[in-house]
């Protein structure tokens, strides 16, 4: 993982998107990692931005709840197979 925006403990404006970017291997075809927000798997609701290098180099998940972020502290977690979950919290509104 190369980007966590906001970073741990950081503040996210109520309308902004949570971003998590990964550096991927040259043979990358699909993202195995899942993004959880407040314990819910939101991976399928994320936009998945793929940088246009060849071979692939970078993928970014972008997430914002349809109704916007509820004010308060939220927990994000990236869960990748065979690895310990990477968890952090951020603040909105």
């Amino acid at each position, binding site marked *: 993982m190369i*980007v966590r*925006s906001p970073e741990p403990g950081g503040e996210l404006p*109520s309308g902004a*998107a949570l*971003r998590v970017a990964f550096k991927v291997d040259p043979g990358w075809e699909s993202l195995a990692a899942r993004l959880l927000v407040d314990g819910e798997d939101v991976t399928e609701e994320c936009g998945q931005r793929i940088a*246009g*290098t060849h071979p692939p180099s970078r993928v970014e998940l972008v997430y*914002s709840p349809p109704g916007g972020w509820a004010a308060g502290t939220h927990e994000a977690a990236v869960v990748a197979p065979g690895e310990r979950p990477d968890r952090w919290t951020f603040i909105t509104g």
Partner: protein
Amino acid sequence: MRRAGILLLTLVLLGLLSAPAHATPPAAAKAVGQSRSDVVAYWTAERMRNATPVDAAKAGQGPKAAYPFTRYEPATYNPAHGKVFFTDGGVNYVCSGTALASGNESVVWTAGHCVNQGPGAFYTNWAFVPAYKDGARPYGTWAARALLTTAPWRNSGDISYDEGAAVVSANASGQTLTDLVGGRGIGFNRPAEQHYLSHGYPAARPFTGGRMFICEADLALRDTSASPPTMGIGCDMTGGSSGGGWVVGNDVLSVNSYGYGNLRNVLFGPYQDGVAQQLYASASGS
């Protein structure tokens, strides 16, 4: 189509609530610690070929695409456009780029992620090959002596500022880049609604990376999940096209940056504002 619709709705929803635009921080730059001859020697014909798959794609249109476009290989290659080669973490990558008219006659405009990890290190073995075609290098190989990107890309990988530049060394004859190949102009803060000619060297299947292609398309949408919103056009170019210039008239107004995994045949590029202008000024003065 339904998935694309859901994605677009999501993008709009994200954008309606998006944060205000950044101020204009300075560009980030790094002098390249490699000699011109070392970089040129690194990019053998074999290494260039090995970065590309074998299947070929033909010129085509996007009648089934949500956003119309026409893609074709130009009959004559404008040598201001070319293919970019670099190394990161021991892996050789390809992108695309555009030679720009500038004070030092040596600026190549591309995507931020074609020069820097965002955030992270700048790349090595960075070279630009104008009008590259199936391994031929009619204007030679131009090694970077400095790489630059915007501060938002360098610091946080902000996709809205995925713009990069290289300043290349003179060739062995002492000629500057644009002295030999000419250069496009560049525009900032122009209206986003334009008819774009997006240039690139797509290398991921079904393309080979050996040929230049142009996607012609009107602005199709804005990705308002980015702030400021990026611009989207219909185009089916694949990986390797990143960094290729979006030309209007003679000016580059954006570069190929990214696509969405579940939105086929749409390419996004940054809206060039004052941050890009500062990057260009820094590169021109390097």
